[in-house]
Structures are given as C-alpha cells and as structure tokens.
C-alpha cells in the first residue's frame, strides 16, 4: 500500500506509466475480483500523456479505482447488474470530471453489491469480491471492490458511495480509511441513484491524508445537482495531530447487544488513546437509534423502487424478446435484476403504494426527523461522536446472504448517519483474529474538519493503518 505522497515521488523519479502498469499487473493477477472493468488502454494512454506533457494537478499521474455506479464516459458502468451490462455512459460524473482535471488516472471500475444494495458485495452479477485479509470472507459492501482494491494494493485510492454505510462498512472490514461526507458536499451528478436522499460519494485510502486529498479534489458546488451545497473548504489543512480539548461523545446505543466484544474493546481503547492525547469524553444517549434500521430501509427501498424504474431496456441496458410494451418491460426487469434488487424494489413499491404510504414511507420520514434531532442534541454538547463502524468484523461469504434481516442488522451503526446527513469517517482501530476493526468518527453537518483531525491524530499515534494483508 503506497500513499499518494510516495507515488508522487515515484512518478517524479520514474513515470506515471510505470506505476499505472504495476497496478494493472497487480489487478490482472489478483483473485479478489475487486474490479468489474479494467480500463487498461485508456489508463496507460493517459499516463503516457501526463509523463510527456506534464500536469500541474494535485493528483497528476495517480491511479484511482471507481465504484461501478459512478458514470465514466467511454467506460462501461454496470452497477454490478446484468441489466446494465454493456452500458457505456456518454458523460462523466461530476467527480470524474474533477478527478481528470486533477490529473488522476482511472484504472478501472470496482465491484459492488448490485445497485449498491447490500453490505457484503455478494449480490454482484459479477460474483463476490473477496476480503484481502481472508478470502473466505466478504469485504463488506456495497463498495466492497473499492475497499478491497485499496487494501489489496490494487489501487492506492478509490471512490465508493455510501447510502447506509456502503463506504464505511467495507473500509472497516478491509482495514482502510473511508469517508462519508455531509449530504450535499460532493455532487451526485453521475452517481447512479439507489436512495438519493441518503447517499453521498466518498473516498477510500490507506491513510487519512490520502482520503482528505481526494476529498479536496472532488468536493465542491455543482450547479447540476440541486442538493449540492456551495461552500469553500480545504480539508487537508484540517489534518493536525492535535485533539486537545476536543469533546468526544460516546453514543451508548452503538455498543449494544450484538456488538462483538473485541470490536467494543478496540473502539474503547481507541477512545482512550484520544483521551490520552487531550480529548475529553462524555457518554451520550441517542434514544431513537433503535428505529433507524427500519426507517432507513423503508426510505431506501421506496426511493429505489422509483429510481430503478428507468431500467426498461429501451434507451440502454438489457433487452429481451419484444412482446407488448408492459410485458416486455416486466420481462426485461425479471431477467436483468438480481433477487436482492427485485425484493427491495417490490418492498419499496409496497411501502409507497395506496393504503401503505403513510404506514411505512411517511412514518419512516418522521422517524428520520427524530433521529436527526438525536444528532442535533448530541452535537450541542460534543464535537464528534465515536462508535464502532460495524458491530463485528468481516463475516464469511454466504453466511448471511439468505437471511435479509441478519444482513440488515449489520448496518445498525452506519445508517443513522445517512438518515441525519452528517459526515462520518471509518478508520482502522484494531484487529481480531487477524481481521481489521474499524471505528467511525461522526461529525456535525459540514464539520468534516473535526472528524478528519480526530482521525488523523489517532492515525499519527497508532499503527493499525500500516498493517497489510499478506500478498498486498
């Protein structure tokens, strides 16, 4: 795992082309299945161009892997679904434009749960991604490919998206850093929606500084996204090894029943480390957390049922044998979507349908208000909240896939953050039986600076982030 700074030196000494070629070779030899599409030709071409012409951008010549639900002009973008296989967007997402302008080189599109619906990257049409720490285990999801690529040394940095934990969960399971920004800080233009009121694009890296560097490049106002906020920030400058006086809240509900004892111990040790560095801690109550999972899933599925209605096989994507319009539409979708996607669309359709709208959808949105208020109350007293990212380390492939509820339950600590729209970063904070543990540091709206600072200070004083799985 090389950092951006290390790569910059090597690009300077050797060339971007050599570095890109090394990563491509690594991907080619890998068994992790972290990538759906590798853009070998265009990546090498771009690297050669940067080598010959030079580039002033902050990411000049640096390879990056992109989750396959972010539109890349000229590069297949599938959402890990059969229904979008072969779809080549004629436009770049806002974040891709930003990355290209900064000189970054897109080396490929990473595997994910189909349409980001999952927490294990097992629902991909292209098969599961394996966890680099233990290939019998899942990398987490839904951005499993992006996290595994960084952990496995197949890309120095990558982008994922986080609807209910989809960046933080795989960051935690793969032992890398992953950030979910405040809703609205990164443009969603070009991100293929799963649940648009909840999701944000977020960067992965092997250290907090790399994540902040990417974040600096891709954040900022975009007039093409009506929910994009307009405020200037320099996140890298927030990276100070100093948490003196920082008030840390410890939400009791996040250490509840179902939390692995080793996970809890590691996170509490990490909090002690920060206390040792001058932070103060206080226990916090967030009483509506218990409703978060249900509310989250109702909202996400409802929005998804509408967001995924455009996949009809007319303008793009899979097309089956023509019958009449409505029958063809139903058959395209029967053939193109996987089981988990179908179930979520069906449930979302049900939750919005006549007679059930108020019971499910509206009720969930009211609970969303209560959860947001929990956070507002907490942040009146503290600067950040710290909790486990996931209640347990990476589970085995196939272990939970047939039990939707137990899979949902793994998101218990991540989804409240999306309901409230606040930022959260997951950083490695320990190991159990050779598997990484992640803790999340949650901030107020737009206060990424505080969580990045806490994460950076923790990282500077520990070495969990430097450990690497064998073979990476």
């Amino acid at each position, binding site marked *: 795992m090389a950092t951006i700074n290390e790569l910059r030196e090597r690009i300077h000494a050797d060339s971007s082309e050599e570095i890109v070629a090394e990563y491509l070779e690594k991907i080619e030899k890998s068994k992790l299945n972290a990538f759906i599409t590798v853009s070998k030709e265009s990546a090498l071409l771009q690297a050669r161009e940067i080598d010959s012409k030079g580039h002033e951008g902050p990411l000049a010549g640096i390879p990056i892997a992109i989750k396959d639900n972010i539109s890349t002009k000229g590069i297949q973008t599938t959402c890990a679904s059969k229904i979008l296989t*072969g*779809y*080549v967007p*004629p*436009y770049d997402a806002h974040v891709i434009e930003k990355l290209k302008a900064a000189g970054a080189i897109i080396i490929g599109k990473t595997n994910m749960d189909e349409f980001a619906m999952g927490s294990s990257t097992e629902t991909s049409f292209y098969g599961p991604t394996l966890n680099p720490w233990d290939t019998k285990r899942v990398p987490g999801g839904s951005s499993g490919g992006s996290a595994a690529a960084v952990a496995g040394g197949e890309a120095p940095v990558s982008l994922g998206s986080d609807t209910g934990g989809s960046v933080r969960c795989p960051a935690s399971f793969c032992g890398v850093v992953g950030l979910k920004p405040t*809703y*609205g800080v990164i443009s969603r233009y070009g991100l293929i929606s799963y649940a648009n*009121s909840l999701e944000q694009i977020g960067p992965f890296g092997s250290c907090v500084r790399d994540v902040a560097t990417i974040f600096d490049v891709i954040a900022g106002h975009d*007039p093409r996204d*009506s*929910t994009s*906020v307009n405020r200037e920030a320099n996140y890298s400058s927030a990276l100070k090894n100093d948490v003196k006086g920082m008030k840390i809240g410890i939400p009791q509900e996040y250490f509840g029943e179902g939390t692995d004892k080793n996970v809890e111990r590691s996170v509490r040790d990490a909090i002690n480390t920060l206390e040792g560095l001058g932070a103060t801690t206080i226990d916090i109550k967030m009483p*509506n957390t218990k*409703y978060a*999972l*249900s509310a989250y*899933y*109702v909202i996400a599925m409802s929005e998804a*049922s509408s967001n995924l209605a455009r996949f009809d*096989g*007319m*303008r*793009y*994507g899979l*097309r089956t044998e*023509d019958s*009449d*319009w*409505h*029958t063809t*539409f*139903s058959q395209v*979708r*029967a053939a193109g979507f996987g*089981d988990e996607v*179908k*179930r979520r*669309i*069906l*449930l979302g*359709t*049900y939750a919005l*349908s006549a007679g059930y709208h108020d*019971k*499910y959808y509206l*009720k*969930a*949105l*009211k*609970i*969303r*208000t*209560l959860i*947001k208020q929990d956070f507002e109350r907490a942040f009146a007293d503290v600067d950040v909240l710290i909790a486990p990212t996931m209640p347990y380390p990476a589970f085995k492939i196939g272990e939970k896939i047939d039990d939707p*509820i137990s899979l*949902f339950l793994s998101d218990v600590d991540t989804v409240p953050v999306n*309901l*409230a*729209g606040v930022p959260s970063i997951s950083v490695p904070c320990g190991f159990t039986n050779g598997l990484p543990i992640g803790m999340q540091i949650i901030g107020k*709206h737009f206060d990424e600076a505080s969580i990045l600072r806490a994460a950076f200070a923790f990282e500077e004083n520990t070495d969990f982030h430097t450990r690497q799985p064998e073979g990476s």
Partner: protein
Amino acid sequence: MIGKKDLEHIGWLARIELSDEDKEKYTPKLNSVLDYFSELDKAETEGVEPTYHVLPMSNVFREDVPTASLSQEEALSNAPKNQHGFIKAPRMM
C-alpha cells in the same frame, strides 16, 4: 402480511415478472422484512414533521440558457434497438 395475490399486484406495479417459483421464494422473505418493519409502529411520531430533505435548502434554479445536448449518435449509442434516429420500443397493445 403479503399473500400471493398481493405479491402479484406489487410485481405488476413494479413491472417485474414473477414466476411461481419466485413467488414461493420471495413471499417469506418479504414478510420477514415487513414483520421487522413493524418496529416503526412503536415510535411515537405524533406531531413530528417528516424530513424529506435533510438539509434546509430551497430555491435552487438554473437560468434559461441553453447548454450542449448529446449528438444523436451519442443519444442512441446504448439503445438496443433504434430505427431512423428513433428509439424502437415494442408495440403498445
């Protein structure tokens, strides 16, 4: 609880053709999720406003100034079937 008839109706509303096997397979799973969702009923939400947008934003506009469109070739490039510049869909009835 969703029965077979309900599932057929939802499948039609969502335009996802469901085989008998699918219906057998999905019904218990969907019902276990709905059962879990009944948790929502326990929350006291009297007088609570729903949060549709998590940030209090309003009035985001663009000006009435044209920007570039795609070329016809780009627009049709992903369409499985097209004819004379049109996208071809199945018959309506």
